């Protein structure tokens, strides 16, 4: 009897070795200027992430999910998208979302628990970062389907982690996308952990990418800390989708250098030696810097200027987030449940406003 099995182990696609040397095919469309812009974004993103963690420690920011270590995976993948494409990110994709056009203060407002964090700028076809694991992957399939149905020259992308591949929604999404051959791109950042659970306990397959095979779509495994390789892989997936070639599953092998969120203590589950390798030798920003250095496109003076520029932008974003108007509670609570408030909601809103006038929810209303 002949049975199906997985024998072919393909090494992750790589263009830059950890020392910054070129070991793979260089994507045609990528010149030094673009490469430098990737680098500046990655530096900006890393410093933003660090600033957010500091703000959290100072009590100026609520729960925050850091992405340090995943800058190449995020900038490289978002760089292959057009601003008109659909983007369905998870909470982890803050670097990519900012690259795509999300004002950095919006990311901070999210962690401050401000309802306006959900209002993605109108010019972007992007949803806020999804909290419910894997749900957004199906939405991307539907959006891609709509693009196809309406004859629009757009693709829809879904971003998610390795843990998300265990949810039924992930499998249903790949299957629907394949069956209806929609212009969807599935981008999985395999950052080695779903909170404390290592990817080796998440799945029995050695890769995420190979799961594509079972659904009849293309799968690519790419070194997620190599921004050039990520960009090349995503460009291929996006181009295929745009050309009517159907969906692709891209797995970017990367590493979350920080905690899962500010509420997590990664010392409980992480191997310090493995951690050190990822943080030092395999760091994505270091790798790109070494590459730029080799190409004569980096020097200390430029680096200092980029850092200064990043810090100024971040300071301005913090300032905007911290001086952002407080929410109008009645409008936030009752104004957006339905297009038209139900009679019950209208009554509850009136009661809420009356209570506010009398001193509020904690105001011990009425005569004492």
């Amino acid at each position, binding site marked *: 009897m002949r049975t199906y099995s997985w024998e072919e182990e393909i090494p992750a696609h790589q263009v830059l070795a950890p020392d910054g040397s070129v070991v793979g095919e260089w994507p045609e469309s990528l010149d030094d200027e673009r490469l430098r812009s990737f680098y500046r974004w990655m530096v900006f993103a890393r410093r933003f992430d660090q600033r957010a963690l500091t703000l959290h420690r100072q009590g100026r920011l609520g729960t925050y999910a850091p992405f340090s270590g995943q800058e190449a995976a995020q900038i490289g993948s978002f760089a292959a998208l057009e601003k008109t494409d659909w983007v369905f990110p998870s909470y982890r994709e803050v670097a990519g979302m900012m690259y795509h056009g999300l004002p950095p203060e919006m990311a901070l407002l999210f962690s401050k628990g401000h309802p306006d964090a959900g209002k993605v700028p109108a010019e972007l076809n992007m949803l806020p970062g999804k909290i419910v694991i894997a749900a957004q992957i199906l939405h991307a399939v539907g959006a891609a389907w709509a693009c196809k149905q309406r004859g629009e020259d757009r693709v829809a992308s879904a971003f998610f982690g390795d843990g998300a591949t265990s949810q039924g929604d992930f499998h249903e999404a790949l299957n629907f996308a394949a069956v209806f051959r929609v212009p969807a791109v599935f981008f999985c950042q395999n950052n080695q952990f779903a909170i404390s659970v290592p990817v080796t306990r998440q799945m029995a397959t050695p890769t995420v990418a190979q799961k594509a095979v079972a659904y009849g779509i293309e799968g690519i495994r790419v070194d997620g800390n190599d921004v050039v390789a990520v960009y090349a892989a995503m460009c291929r997936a996006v181009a295929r989708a745009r050309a009517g070639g159907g969906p692709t599953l891209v797995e970017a092998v990367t590493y979350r250098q920080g905690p899962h969120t500010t509420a997590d203590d990664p010392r409980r589950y992480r191997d310090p030696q493995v951690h050190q390798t990822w943080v030092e030798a395999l760091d994505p920003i270091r790798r790109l810097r070494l590459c730029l250095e080799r190409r004569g496109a980096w020097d200390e003076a430029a680096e200092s200027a980029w850092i200064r520029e990043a810090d100024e932008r971040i300071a301005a974003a913090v300032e905007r987030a911290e001086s952002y108007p407080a929410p109008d509670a009645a409008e936030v609570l009752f104004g957006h449940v339905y297009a038209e408030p139900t009679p019950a909601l209208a009554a509850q809103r009136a009661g809420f406003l009356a209570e506010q006038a009398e001193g509020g929810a*904690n105001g011990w209303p009425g005569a004492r």
Partner: protein
Amino acid sequence: MAGRTMIQAIQDAIATALARDPRVMVLGEDVGKNGGVFRATEGLQERFGEGRVIDTPLAESGIVGTAVGLALAGMRPIDEIQFLGFIYETMDQLASQAARIRFRTQGRCTVPLVVRAPFGGGVRTPELHSDSLEALFLHTPGLKVVMPSNPYDAKGLLLAAVEDPDPVLVLEPMRLYRLGRMEVPDGFYTVPIGPARLAREGEDVTIVAWGPTVPIALEAAEAAAAEGVSCEVLDLRTVSPFDAAALTQSVEKTGRAVVVHEAVRSGGVGAEVLAAIHDGAFYSLLAPVERVTGFDTPYPPPAVEDLWLPTPARVLAAVRRVMQA
């Protein structure tokens, strides 16, 4: 006996269940090596092994669906759903599978399954981490739902759930996990599923609460006492099936009732409590029953959540209204 927080009492209950019954297994996301995101299973994988305290893949439907099979085939699984909001992922397995197998097989097959989930507001979580969803499961015949409000009940109800022949949801108020300590006996004991607990005796008004609103009801009762109004506080503890007899008895005495829950108002368990009062104590009522609840909206973002939740002041205002009626 030792002073324990609710989360410690829950950890102790799970450890007790694992130690006394080899059929017990713990399944969930991050429950093993990490000891659970709230530390409800702290140290249990080291103590009982990876075969009994299991980090599952990230799939709630898988966690509940496989536990249905485990329970059918002789095991006693305790599932952890990391936050109650994610229980929507399991609705088919929980509501149309686990809850119905006894009925569908006319008693031939049963699902002695425990599903634990933290829930509730006031702790500044992102969306879907704070929702109170007990009403969905009161509306699901075949499931039981318990909602402890203190460490002693949390341990006793959880152990009773493990002993129970039917699927039981144990909903744990996050905000109370580390809010204060209480003497909790070591070893095995149960708090029976079903009976309510009289948390405070009073004469004028019955305040009905469960889980996270019990301390709020007690605070309001204290404030009412200062105004000369004597409130009885009834902690339902079990929301499905709930203790209509205790409810009736109390309202027959006081003639007035205020129901307090965090869940949204419409179709909430509060409405069912009102129906039970109507059925059992209608002729004793001196005032229309009041409800203090969340609004009919999704649970809001942290910046406005304090304006959404029931507060002692809101409960006191309702107490005054029923006294003035």
